[in-house]
């Protein structure tokens, strides 16, 4: 079934998953040494490690599908922003701890639904990577949802901060749930779930936690964004400049 799909389409789809995990993992890594408490520093670093590990598995697979000899490092470090296909939400700056938690919660809830569905993908390799990532994502969501409730239902200050973050980041969520031609092609082949089936599950889960956190769901987001098609906000380029600096300045450098 999957063999009838053009390799270029499969490559692009796997890259979307890989880049979202990679970019989010890199963002969380920026917290190392700066988190509000040692425990949260460790937690964010651990989640970043899981995400970068998932990205490595996915990038290696994407490189094999492409068949042009690019490995995980070449794909991570030697592409420019327009070639990255992560969803725009993942690249948004950390801001304060509350903003990072809001971004993480929205994406954890989405990755959980996505990986749950992908674990049954017609693409066997993708299915096994998703089954592994799913276990880790459940853990991530417990952390981010737990903190969102503590901050939202916390002090007036913490409530105001996560409310602002939610209002600022909500507009990027439409991209997670709106399919484009590639998403539809993958769904038709049984590789990926139709995003329409993810929407009510994601919305339900998010609504439940927002209610417990005494936070109001922002108004519907109209702008779909296009990160997964390579059209990014200005933040990704800056992040990549830092992430890719060393391997580009010293090609082939080893520890």
């Amino acid at each position: 079934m999957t063999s009838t799909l053009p390799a270029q389409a499969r490559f692009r789809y796997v890259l979307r998953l890989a880049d979202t995990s990679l970019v989010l993992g890199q963002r969380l890594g920026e917290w190392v040494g700066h988190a509000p408490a040692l425990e949260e520093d460790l937690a964010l670093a651990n989640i970043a490690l899981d995400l970068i590990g998932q990205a490595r598995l996915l990038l290696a697979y994407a490189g094999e599908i492409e068949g042009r000899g690019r490995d995980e490092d070449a794909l991570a470090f030697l592409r420019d922003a327009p070639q990255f296909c992560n969803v725009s939400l993942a690249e948004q700056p950390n801001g304060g701890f509350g903003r990072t938690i809001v971004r993480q919660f929205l994406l954890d809830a989405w990755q959980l639904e996505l990986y749950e569905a992908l674990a049954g993908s017609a693409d066997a390799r993708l299915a096994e990577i998703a089954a592994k990532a799913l276990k880790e994502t459940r853990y991530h969501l417990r952390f981010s949802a737990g903190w969102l409730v503590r901050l939202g239902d916390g002090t007036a200050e913490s409530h105001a901060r996560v409310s602002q973050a939610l209002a600022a980041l909500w507009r990027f969520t439409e991209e997670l749930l709106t399919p484009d031609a590639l998403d539809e092609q993958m769904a038709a082949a049984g590789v990926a779930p139709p995003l329409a089936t993810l929407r009510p599950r994601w919305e339900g889960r998010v609504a439940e936690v927002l209610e417990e956190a005494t936070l109001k769901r922002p108004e519907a987001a109209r702008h779909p964004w296009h990160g997964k098609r390579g059209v990014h906000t200005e933040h990704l380029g800056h992040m990549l400049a830092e992430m890719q600096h060393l391997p580009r300045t010293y090609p082939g450098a080893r520890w």
Partner: protein
Amino acid sequence: MVTELPAAQPGARNGREEGVWQVLRTVMDPEIPVLSIVDLGIVRYVHQDKGATRVGITPTYSGCPATEVILGAVHEALEHHGLRDVIVETVLSPPWSSEWLSEAGRWRLELFGICAPSAQRPEASCPRCGSRDAELVSEFGSTPCKAHYRCGTCREPFDVFKCI
């Protein structure tokens, strides 16, 4: 196709396979040096495939930095014991579960000061004083596989092997 073993249970093995298992029992997790990779449950199979012996290793967590160190240590240990023509493969499916820890492994972890709950005995208890009055400090600890707790009785902090 070889049957996937839930943990390192003895099956019908030929002499060479048994020899490989014995060497693997001496390869320790670099982060938890009392635990062999066999007790950790990450060795999925050892089997003969024509001239070569295939060893399947599964990572505990996708991003665990110990995985590469372990793969290197496996090669080194086998070579050191004169076992050549061994192919070490990374297996992803089924994903690793903390239920694959052996009983001996759980016991060694407790002695080392790490609580290792299981599905039958899910609650955390203090590895120092045995108290069940344990409080979760953070779901994430010093390595991807551990969470951080504090004992309400002796007040000492301790690690708990996460159940996944």
